[in-house]
């Protein structure tokens, strides 16, 4: 990342500001005084070992947990600032925060297209005048429904799922289900897209495609992306900003390069050098770096 890019990045408007977030379960302090920001037009990655509190941070942001302390301010598209910790979960999607789940949560027995229509529940519900216009079949509702299908089609095209639009979502292959979950989140027209381990279980080729998709969402829609991920090949290639958690605390933050060479991060997460390196000929052949950073 060049200096110019960095300057441009800092100039981007802040979408989400996490300040002194704490989350306590019983006696366990799962998140301890974590602060960071996520900006529009940027991909912010949260990484850290298992149990570091990444998903908990996510659940606080998206309203599934109520934080024990701290402030989560989110700037909606009209400029108003919402305090996420005060909103009920379902309202958070309404103001522009969408999310996906670590273990995919689709509506498996509904069709792919229906999954995307459910994502547009709020605008469509309004258009159907809380079902009255819909029951009567008024043109205004039918138009809204057509537009909804078009938005869905747009995202199906972006994620390469048009051909399977009428399949039951549960019948899709695993990688397609991951993409569908992202398409579904995008159909809520979010300002901030929160992805919980989107590359888990994908093979390298699928991971690379996912990285392209995320980049295109960032650049095309200009929205912020918040990402939890273990796959360093994804994190390091697409992130603009990386936050590292360990035992509920933030231990480092910065550009991917900076984080990658941070001593604390290496110790807690990436690990020291391989104790048992590859035979040199194989290593050379593979072009694998032996410093244990991942590619």
């Amino acid at each position, binding site marked *: 990342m060049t200096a110019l890019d960095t300057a441009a990045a800092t100039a981007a408007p802040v979408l989400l500001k996490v300040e002194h977030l704490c989350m306590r379960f019983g006696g366990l302090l799962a998140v301890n005084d974590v602060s960071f920001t996520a900006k529009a037009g940027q991909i912010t990655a949260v990484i850290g070992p298992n149990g570091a509190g990444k998903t908990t941070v996510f659940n606080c942001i*998206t309203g599934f947990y109520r934080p024990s302390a701290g402030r989560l301010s989110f700037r909606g598209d009209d400029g108003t600032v919402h305090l996420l910790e005060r909103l009920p979960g379902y309202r958070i999607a309404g103001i522009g925060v969408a999310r996906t789940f670590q273990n995919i949560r689709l509506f498996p027995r509904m069709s792919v297209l229906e999954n995307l229509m459910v994502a547009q529940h709020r605008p469509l519900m309004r258009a159907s005048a809380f079902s009255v216009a819909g029951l009567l079949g008024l043109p205004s509702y039918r138009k809204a429904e057509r537009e909804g299908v078009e938005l869905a089609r747009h995202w199906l095209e972006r994620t390469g799922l048009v051909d399977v*639009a*009428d399949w039951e979502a549960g019948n899709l292959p695993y990688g397609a289900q991951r993409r569908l979950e992202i398409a579904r989140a995008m159909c809520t027209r979010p300002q901030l897209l929160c992805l919980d381990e989107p590359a888990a279980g994908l093979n390298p080729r699928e991971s690379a495609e996912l990285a392209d998709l995320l980049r295109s969402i960032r650049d095309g829609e200009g929205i912020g992306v918040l990402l939890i991920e273990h796959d360093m090949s994804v994190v390091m290639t697409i992130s603009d900003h990386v936050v590292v958690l360990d035992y509920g605390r933030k231990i480092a933050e910065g550009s991917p390069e900076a984080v990658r060479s941070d001593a604390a991060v290496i110790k807690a997460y990436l690990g020291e050098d391989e104790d048992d390196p590859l035979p040199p000929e194989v290593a050379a052949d593979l072009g694998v770096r032996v410093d244990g950073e991942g590619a």
Partner: protein
Amino acid sequence: MTAATLNAGASRSVLPAALKEAAIAAVVALALTLPFVGLRTVDSPQGLTVVTRFGEVAIAVALVFIGRLGLVLVREGYAAAVLGASIAAAVVFWLAPFPTPPLRVIALGGAGVIAIRAALKLRDMRGGAAGQQARDNRADRFAAKVQELTRWLGPLVVLFAVALPFMPFAGRSVIDIGILLLTYIMLGWGLNIIVGYAGLLDLGYVAFYAVGAYSYALLAQYFGWSFWACLPLAGVLAAMAGLMLGFPVLRLRGDYFAIVTLGFGEIIRIVLLNWYDFTGGPNGISGIPRPDFFGIADFTRNPAEGKVAFHEMFGLEFDPLQRIIFLYYLILVLALAVNFFTLRIRKLPIGRAWEALREDEIACTALGIDRTRIKLAAFSISAMWGGFAGAFFATRQGFISPESFTFLESAIILAIVVLGGMGSQVGVVVATLIVIGLPEAFRELSEYRMLAFGMGMVLIMVWRPSGLLAHREPTVLLHGGRDARRKRAAAEARA
């Protein structure tokens, strides 16, 4: 090793094992029948005493032994032999003397079941092995076909229903049965909204049915309001009861919700039973006014002051059947209204949200759906249709009491929904014909009716756990049309 030696080797080891299994089954049967069949409690002047029926026990145990043996042999691949034997046995049972008729029925039924199992096994053996999943797929394809057929068969059936009262065979009893069936179909469709679509297990649906019925009965009794004024009110009151109950309990999960709805149903029944001054308690309310012809005409021979008689208005002979036919059409229209409403709302955002909630509540929340409000809507709408049905029930019967609103009633309606295949509108119709129609057709066997009913419920569920006609069509298609649908089904099956 050749097939023959393989078989010979197998049969040597199969028979002792099969005999052992059959013996175990016989011992179990002995334990089951000894106290209940073998020792009947009877009143005597000295108090309760027992008379023995050990002969029946012996026969039952023998039957179980033979039956189990047959089933084991079918499983081990001797289906053809068992099929022959079971048919022969059926003939023998038909002719042989039995101490009591029920034993003969049991024996015949057992032989029949084994014959069917053997026949199915023969088919499977020829067509390659088929697992439960394959059978489910076949059932799903069948259901899809049925649903496609309903597109044009449905209107025909409705036409038939409309013409029914004027068919030559349609006497009073046929129309009565028609009304009964339509009432349950309506209740089934109403409950389908909450159970089939929203996926919330409501074990107390009968409460709303009761609220509707008592609303009309009480309003008519205390204020003399007419049926037509009370019908919408009954629906509204039931919907409000749904809201009142739903508000506190809808955040409960799964079975907690189920037990609370069951409790609510019981509470309503107990209140109706004990609030003697208001509801008449166990005596119920009688003399509930019959509906008139939309407030313009009466169905009596000599109409009340200021009313016209229906037969005079249309220049017909007086016939008490006219009112029954009118009731029949009334419930037909009500039932079709529920159906139309459900089919329509299923394709609206709220209907999709119901189904989405059934699939994954957490994902719904993340998509901005307020689950309490959506569930509440499903609950109260479902209750509303129950209320309408209740008002109809009250006016048809002319008499209601808490007796009609027991848990068994809820269970029957739920059974209709689940047996038919949750969320399947056609399924409700088919299941009603089975659950209500069949026992009605065998009324003379009244003693054994409920026994067979319970056994039927178990058997159907074991045979088709997801219901008879469970198949879901998407509410909206990107690639519409028949061909696209067929192609999609094929591709999905391959994936």
